[in-house]
């Protein structure tokens, strides 16, 4: 269990740096920073699930993609208000998480990994088959507006909106992990049989955790759809889920704030490599394998001072 008894300076500084990106006046960088925050948000939700809950889901992208599609489909039907898009995205992702989690959490271990993977693929195929919403080609959307005068089309405005959401979510997640619910969830992660014999209905607690993580992912998805003004079925597929897990392990599992650094690192690496080669995975693949084999604690552990 991580202790935040002292405010850790280096991660906070790094976050402040990210927050100051628009000051540089480079729209490309602002956009990149927004993307980092959005992926940091969905990776944070995955950290709640994996790092704190011990539920290794290989289908988290499904909720991310669903949130994105919710925004896109609403836009397709002429509804552009963020006041509608946000709750609908969260509701859609939560509903899916309730069903998928409800079934998957009856299993554990490898079964759970495979089943979450399978269900996410199912949603991917459905998105593919729904040609009315673009099918394989995806769907374009117009960015949402908060109130008629403040539209998200201004990249700086949008960046700060996303930053606000990110910080609020971080605060909520932080309190969650230290709450009674958080303690139970981590106990179930450590030793489910013992938790049950203490009196906890482990299925129910894990399901609530699963749905909460799904809801946050849906929120991030809605923001992503707004950033790119486009959604496609690829947002739902297992490669996307795998990418999220990679951001998690790069950043540090069980740290909440680590994932945003993992997202920054992964997205940066992909950008840089794609400038030099069309086959970035030839390099990244083995690098990732090495990270898996030899890392402990990810970037977060590197940033934290030695004494813990």
């Amino acid at each position, binding site marked *: *269990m991580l202790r935040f008894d002292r405010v850790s300076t280096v991660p906070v500084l790094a976050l402040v740096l990210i927050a100051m990106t628009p000051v540089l006046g480079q729209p490309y960088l602002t956009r990149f920073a927004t993307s980092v925050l959005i992926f940091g948000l969905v990776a944070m939700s995955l950290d709640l699930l994996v790092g704190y809950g011990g539920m290794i889901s290989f289908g988290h992208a499904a909720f991310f993609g669903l949130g994105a599609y919710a925004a896109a489909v609403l836009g397709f039907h002429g509804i552009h208000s963020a006041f509608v898009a946000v709750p609908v995205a969260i509701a859609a992702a939560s509903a899916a998480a309730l069903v998928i989690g409800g079934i998957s959490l009856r299993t554990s271990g490898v079964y759970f990994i495979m089943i979450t993977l399978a269900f996410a693929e199912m949603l991917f195929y459905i998105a593919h088959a729904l040609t009315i919403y673009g099918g394989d080609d995806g769907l374009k959307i117009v960015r949402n507006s908060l109130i008629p005068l403040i539209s998200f089309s201004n990249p700086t405005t949008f960046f700060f909106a996303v930053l606000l959401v990110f910080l609020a979510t971080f605060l909520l997640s932080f*309190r*969650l992990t*230290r*709450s*009674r*619910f*958080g*303690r*139970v969830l*981590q*106990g179930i992660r*450590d*030793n489910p*049989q*013992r*938790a*049950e*014999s*203490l*009196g*906890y*209905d*482990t299925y129910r*607690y894990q399901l*609530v955790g699963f749905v909460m993580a799904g809801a946050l992912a849906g929120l991030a998805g809605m923001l992503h759809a707004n950033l790119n003004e486009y959604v496609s079925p690829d947002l739902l597929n297992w490669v996307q889920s795998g990418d999220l897990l990679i951001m998690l392990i790069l950043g540090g599992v069980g740290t909440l704030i680590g994932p945003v650094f993992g997202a920054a690192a992964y997205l940066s690496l992909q950008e840089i490599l794609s400038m030099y080669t069309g086959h970035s995975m030839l390099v990244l693949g083995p690098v990732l394998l090495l990270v898996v084999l030899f890392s402990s604690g990810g970037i977060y552990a590197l940033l934290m001072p030695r004494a813990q």
Partner: protein
Amino acid sequence: MSEPLLHVRGLTRRFGGLVANDNVDLAVEAAEIHALIGPNGAGKTTLIAQIAGQLSPSDGAIWFDGREITALKPHARAAMGLSRSFQVTSIFPTFSAFENVALAAQARCGHSFRFWAPARGVEEINRRAVSALAQVGLDGKAEAKAADMSHGDHRLLEIAMALAGQPKLILMDEPTAGMGTAESQHLVALLRRLRQDCAILLVEHDMDVVFSLADRITVLDNGRSIASGPPQAIRGDERVRAAYLGSYRTGPSVDHA
């Protein structure tokens, strides 16, 4: 006679052709230490598993605190005050000792679907956790990470966790396993003190511990209960001698595992 706290009636469990428990009757009174003994393979572990709710019986019923619990899941039984400690240490390794016990206490302080307030701030939980740790003598090591503690301390932590929920009955599966003489005696003294607060159903192989602690003893052999009664009666029982005790006499003799 009032209803016993725990009443096992005609409990039977089959595994295919093997009958692990055969029509077992067992009663544990409140504020009693009841020992369950018998040779290896007699069905003690199976019986405990059924009482805890991990295994469902093929036949028979279990009553606890006036309610039939035969079909209740393990967590529901724990919520009723039926606690257990495990033979193989089963704790929360990444938690501190305090957090382990606090989690146990928390289970009996209402539901835990509370998402905002810090768990460490709940007075009731903290009080119970501190008290349980003090009872087993681990209060000095509250902040130690559970995974780093010694085996003996793990056994004490197990018991603290079982206590923290202020249970009515604790199922203890070989609590002295792997302990040296001094540690065992410390544990026996602890269990004796606990008798006021809760009943204990104790599976044990160490006969010294059994005869110095138990108010009553039940003997299992080949899945059946062959004798049940106060220690003197059991010691003198011919069937029990033949099946299990052999030439056991009072006095220091049996070596500890």
